[in-house]
């Protein structure tokens, strides 16, 4: 159980993506940070921040409301409490790593770097994991689509050329090889032509 005194650090995660939000929340909980609030909707963001009074705010870089947080650097009627929030003033490579991962952090002034580091590390790891997951998902979707196209092309060849399934695939494969193309691309071309010819 979290004996880490930093479990008391109040963290606000702003992310409109529900899956990534859950991944980050779980990640932070596993790392022992329990005072985590997640926010999907960014209307009245400044109000939320004042009510919550977080030590660390994490926001994804696809969120236009990032500019709302820039207001936290200012002192004004709306920003009533003169808190100076800054983004990790640490070295450039850390900022670079965060941008690469797709996240930005705003940290209450005065908070020690060592206390913030594990939060940033966890978040960046989770962001990267999400990006990987998304890329894999896209790949699987693409592979499924390709398999369907190849099946369709085989069907056309079987009907029009009277080939059996194995021969139809063989023909696609040798055509692809002789043209230096992928089987899926040859299949796609065949399906498109067949569509045009009203097959």
């Amino acid at each position: 159980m979290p004996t880490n005194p930093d479990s008391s650090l109040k963290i606000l995660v702003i992310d409109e993506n529900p899956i990534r939000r859950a991944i980050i929340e779980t990640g932070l909980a596993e790392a022992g940070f329990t005072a985590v609030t997640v926010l999907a909707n960014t209307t009245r963001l400044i109000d939320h921040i004042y009510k919550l009074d977080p030590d660390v705010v994490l926001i994804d870089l696809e969120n236009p409301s990032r500019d709302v947080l820039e207001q936290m650097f200012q002192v004004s009627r709306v920003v009533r409490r003169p808190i100076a929030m800054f983004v990790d003033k640490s070295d450039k490579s850390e900022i670079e790593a965060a941008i690469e991962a797709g996240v930005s952090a705003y940290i209450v002034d005065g908070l020690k770097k060592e206390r913030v580091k594990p939060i940033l590390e966890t978040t960046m790891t989770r962001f990267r994991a999400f990006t990987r997951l998304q890329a894999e998902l896209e790949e699987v979707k693409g592979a499924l689509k390709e398999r369907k196209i190849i099946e369709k092309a085989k069907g056309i060849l079987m009907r029009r050329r009277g080939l059996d399934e194995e021969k139809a695939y063989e023909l696609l494969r040798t055509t692809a090889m002789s043209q230096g193309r992928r089987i899926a691309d040859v299949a796609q071309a065949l399906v498109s032509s067949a569509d045009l010819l009203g097959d």
Partner: protein
Amino acid sequence: MVDAANGSAGIKPRDVHVGFMPLTDCAPLVVASELGFDRRHGLNLVLHREVSWANIRDKLGVGNFDCAHMLAPMPVAAALGLGRASDLIVAPMALSLNGNAITVSHRLYAEMLAADEAATRAGGMSAARAVARVVRARQQQGREPLTLGIVYPFSCHNYDLRYWLAAAGIDPDNDVNLIVVPPPLSVDALRTGRVDGVCVGQPWNSVAVSGGEGVIVATKNELWAMSPEKVLGVREEWAAKNPALVADLVRALVTACRWLDEPENRREAAGILARSEYVGIPEPILAGPLTGALTRGGGQAPIADPDLVVFHRGFANFPWHSHALWMLTQMIRWGQVSEPFDLKALTERVFRTDLYRDAVAGLDVPVPASDAKREGGEADGRFFGAESFDPAAPLAYLAGLSIRNSGTDLAAFAPFNP
């Protein structure tokens, strides 16, 4: 050295990564890429659409971008270490003048009409007088103060809106709530009443009007004619390492800006910008203000003004030291910076008139004789009503502004600014 393309035939043009925000005034970057002004000058612009100015700053800062579409005060703020710490960013050219407007909700517009119909209908600087009456009435009645939106703390939107309010006697830090509203969310904020008005760049004012969510009460050109808005930002270090590339980049963009300022090209530009990878707003909404025809809503007559947004004429691409200096005075005025420093030295380091002059020397592009100019005066109403700004005396100008942050000691600036 008339055209870099002569020397670069057959050589693959170098990729230059540029970040932009989906606003009408990203046009020079988009047009340079779409119409090939970049390749004609030996480079290949790779455009990256962004969602926040903070992203633009950070990605330019760490080198993901080589250059970026920036709010003119952003490089100035970076040099002062305001906001997030960043490398020094310099502006070798300006990308556009004017282009913003102040749009209010129908509810505030009705209150303004009731408070001072003539001033409201006159628009521009006059409209602020009606807002001032609304502000005072709300104070007397104990009602919530008005909430007004800007797009970023270091923006001309912020300084123009504050100037407009202060000119009518409103203290923007105490009489109203000023909040940041990202441009794509501004129309929704007007509709739901989360803000009573916004100062935002096009096309968002026109999107609000066309959707019946707001009324345009002032254009930037009405507040300050031919006033600074967007610049090209590059890292100082990158500019120092790549002088030839910076010159080619400036020439390519100046050529694009010149093309954009031909009235017959504006409609074509609207068609290009309408595409989803750029601004992604229907062409008719973009075309109105681009061609000088602004529908204001609220039953007002449309405005016909060819200077609603200016990309080239009137030395629009020249990064005036006096423009940067004015932005510094506003940062001091509103307490964004209070530590004294040498204003002139900073403007000269950030707004690089030398890079601009060198780059356009071989092009048929006029340049001003001086790096600074006076604004307003002569009661011509071109600079926030009858006000004036003398770049030779910024501290005296600041001292003459009646509404400003009281925490700043102007006397402390004097030794740094003889």
